[in-house]
């Protein structure tokens, strides 16, 4: 019996030996690239409706979901509500126009990772060069947790099958259908609903926003939303880096050892 070949990884080199004889030697960088090319980490996927960017990394995926401009019914806290959120909060249903809404999500094993943002745009995401994002005016979206436009998914119900489609659908549902309130103002200390009300008289109050919507369902595309100073690609890359650090520069045995350790931990959890 010949026995199994052995891989020895040290520093930036990998060596294949069989019966103590060296069969091959390669740089770790070439080896890692070769493994990445050979491994089919993700099966073919039918991307859910609205997904414009799909960036897998390890057991994570970063997605940009685009919701086209539309007028839709949402529940929003009344200005005179004494409660900020929870029991006793006064809500009303409003028919409000939105521009393109871009949700940036990093999912780990199909579940939200805590890295989740919401921005506006005036045009669809088309190319890497034209992905500038705009600051929204939504309640429950706040500068928080190292994210410029973190969106609250606190009560997102667990999705039935954990598929990308059900998770993305569940997040979009939650963003628009779970009532908007002052939870972010209370817990994160700010919200874009509070900070953007002076931006344009048509979105200065719920009454004005609703009235403007009744007059022109596309008016939200004309509001001078403030530039966020970032792009969908850049934000998604930063968010992914926080959740699943990429191999930086020349791979080393130490980095691979870290990957092996994380893989073992993930296996134990699953």
């Amino acid at each position, binding site marked *: 019996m010949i026995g199994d070949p052995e891989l020895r990884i040290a520093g930036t080199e990998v060596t294949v030996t069989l019966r103590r004889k060296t069969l091959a030697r390669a740089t770790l960088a070439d080896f890692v690239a070769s493994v990445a090319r050979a491994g089919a980490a993700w099966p073919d996927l039918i991307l859910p*409706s*609205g997904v414009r960017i799909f960036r897998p990394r390890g057991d994570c995926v970063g997605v940009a979901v685009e919701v086209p*401009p539309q007028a839709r019914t949402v529940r929003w806290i009344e200005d005179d509500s004494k409660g900020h*959120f929870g029991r006793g909060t006064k809500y009303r249903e409003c028919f409000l126009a939105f521009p393109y809404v871009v949700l940036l999500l990093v999912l780990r094993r199909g579940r939200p990772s805590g890295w989740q943002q919401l921005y506006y745009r005036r045009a669809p995401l088309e190319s890497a060069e034209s992905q500038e994002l705009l600051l929204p005016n939504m309640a429950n979206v706040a500068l928080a947790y190292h994210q410029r436009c973190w969106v609250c998914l606190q009560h997102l119900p667990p999705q039935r099958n954990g598929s990308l489609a059900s998770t993305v659908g569940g997040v979009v*549902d939650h963003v628009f259908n779970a009532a908007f309130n002052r939870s972010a103002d209370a817990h994160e200390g700010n919200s874009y609903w509070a900070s953007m009300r002076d931006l344009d008289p048509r979105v200065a109050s719920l009454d004005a926003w609703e009235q403007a919507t009744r007059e022109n*369902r*596309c008016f939200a595309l004309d509001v*001078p939303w403030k530039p966020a100073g970032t792009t969908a690609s850049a934000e998604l890359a930063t968010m992914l880096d926080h959740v699943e650090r990429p191999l930086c520069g020349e791979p080393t045995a130490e980095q691979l050892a870290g990957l092996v350790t994380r893989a073992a931990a993930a296996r134990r959890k699953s």
Partner: protein
Amino acid sequence: MERMRRRRRPGEPEAPPEYEAQRPQENGGAGSGVQVIWGATADSFDLAEMTVGDAYRMLSAPLNIAPAVAALVNGNASDANHRLAAGDVLEFARPAGEKGARA
């Protein structure tokens, strides 16, 4: 139908050219479509004169619309017999709770 436009405010960036080309019809415009909103989907379908119930039966499979959803037309709760008109917005929405931490 000429679109309603307002004057650009000082300092406001001009809309990129593609936005003009892809701008959806304002308040129905001249088309006969009904905008259907479900999750991240917002597509226009030729549903004028159809009832909300028929529209749901036709679209629930292709758009994977959940059973037990509420239907709203132009922001108003609507029943299955409501007849749709050109330019309407038909929303299917699942009831959800609220955002944020529990009080």
